Every structure is written in C-alpha cells, then in structure tokens.
C-alpha cells in the first residue's frame, strides 16, 4: 500500500500533531478563531439567502453541513497525507476553524427535535438520517477526490 509510509508519519487520533502541543497555542487558537468567524458568517449568510420555513425540511443547514464535510475531507488529505508538510496554520484555519464553524451539529439537533415535537416524526427521522448519511458520503467523496488528484499529480511529477 503506497500510502503506508505517509500514514505512519501523519498525526493519529489521540496524539498531538507536531507543533500543536498545549504550549505555544496562541497562533493556532487565533487561526481557529478567524476561520471559525468566517465559517459561521458564511453559514449565517446562507440562512439569510435561503431561509427555511418552520416545520419544513431544513434544506439550508442540510446543504451547509454536506458541503462543509466534503471540503474538510478534501482538506484533510492535503494536510495530513502528503509527503511535504503544509503550513502549520492551514489545518487550524481552514479545517478546525472554517469547516468547523461553517457546519453545525447543534442546529441540526434542534431542527430534528422541532420536527419530531411538531408531530412530524417522518420528516424528523428523515432529516436525522439523511443528514448523517449525506455528510458521511460527502466526507468520503472529498477524501477520495483529493487522494485521486494527489495521486495524479505525483504520477505527473514522476514523469
């Protein structure tokens, strides 16, 4: 498996990535904050552009979450699975910050609860399951597309 060597160097769940130990966190926290502000603003803008009526299927939050998952999947391949290390603040800014602030779990949970409480269990359960399935498919699609592009670029670089 050609990725094994790269994977071994990549940060694993449960360990601190290089340069992200608890000390010296200020630039990282700043990058997360700025990215989070931009992501949340984009989500708020989407909600203003495409408002969802009460008790309707929350298409805007659904789409925002799916798009953010695809973007994070693509980004994580670029920041954790490439031989050359990217800028250390790229992942905190775009991943943890922007994608994290753009997508939301709390609004998803509240909208689901509202649909269920409004006596529309079918729509509530459909929203609950459809978001989870679409989000997982989107993150997989983002990861897969990014790995394909990276593999083609590496093949081209080798000639």
């Amino acid at each position, binding site marked *: 498996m050609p990725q094994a060597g790269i994977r071994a160097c990549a940060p694993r*769940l*449960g*360990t*601190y990535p290089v340069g*992200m130990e*608890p000390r010296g*966190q200020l630039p*990282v*926290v700043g990058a*997360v*904050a700025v*990215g*989070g*502000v931009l*992501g*949340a*603003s984009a*989500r*708020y803008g989407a*909600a203003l552009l495409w408002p969802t009526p*009460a008790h309707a299927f929350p298409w805007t939050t659904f789409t925002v*979450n799916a798009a*953010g*998952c695809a*973007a*994070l*999947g693509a980004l*994580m391949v670029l920041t954790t699975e490439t031989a050359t290390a990217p800028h250390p603040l790229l992942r*905190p800014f775009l*991943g*943890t*910050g922007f*994608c*994290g*602030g*753009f*997508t*939301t*779990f*709390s*609004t*998803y*949970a*509240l909208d*689901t*609860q*509202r649909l269920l*409480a409004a006596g529309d269990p079918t729509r509530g359960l459909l929203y*609950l399951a459809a*978001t*989870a399935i679409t*989000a*997982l498919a*989107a*993150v*997989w699609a983002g*990861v897969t597309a990014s790995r394909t592009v990276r593999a083609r670029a590496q093949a081209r670089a080798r000639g």
Partner: protein
Amino acid sequence: MNWLLVMVGAAVGAPLRYLTDLAVRARHDSVFPWGTLVVNVVGSFALGLLAGVAPGRASPLLGTGLCGALTTYSTFSYETLKLYEDGAKGYALLNVAGSLAAGLGAVWLGVETAAAFG
C-alpha cells in the same frame, strides 16, 4: 448588527471547541473522538436551553454564533470515516449512533429544562 453578533459568538465558540478537544485528548488516550462528542452534546444542550427560553427567536450571538461554531458536523463525519478506514468499524458505528442519540437527547433536555424553569 446581527452579523457582528454571529462573528463574536463564533470567535469564542470555535476556539472553545478546539481547546476542549485538546483537553479531552490530553486526558483520554483513546481512538474514540470523545472531544467532538463532548462539544456537540454540550452545544446541543445549550441551544436547546436557548430555544426553550425564547421560543421562535434565534439568538445570533449565543445560538448561530456560539453554539453553531462550538458544534461541528464536518469533524464528526471525518473522524467517523477515519475510524472506519483504520479498521475500527464498531467505533465508527458507535460514534454515529452515540452522537445522534446524545445530541438529540441533549437538545431535548435543554428545551425541557428551560420549560421547567420558565
């Protein structure tokens, strides 16, 4: 004005999510993404409380900004995919079922708590 409130809330919520995840990882050496689960459950409970206190009115500062940026769907999905790819398929399934059940339970508890004291 509302834009500014969303931005201020997110400027607190997003770093709070990052620091919570860091603190949880430092205490639990586990492949299971407890940090993301914690922020998603806490943020869902808080948004439920807000919705129960002021029904029908979304709060740009605390709701859209703070709770919205504190919680995340993208990291939850990515961590689930990583668990699956790394062979921890049981944990991946548990993360999805557990996050959905705990998030929905937390938001419901928040709404009910606000109603009980309101």
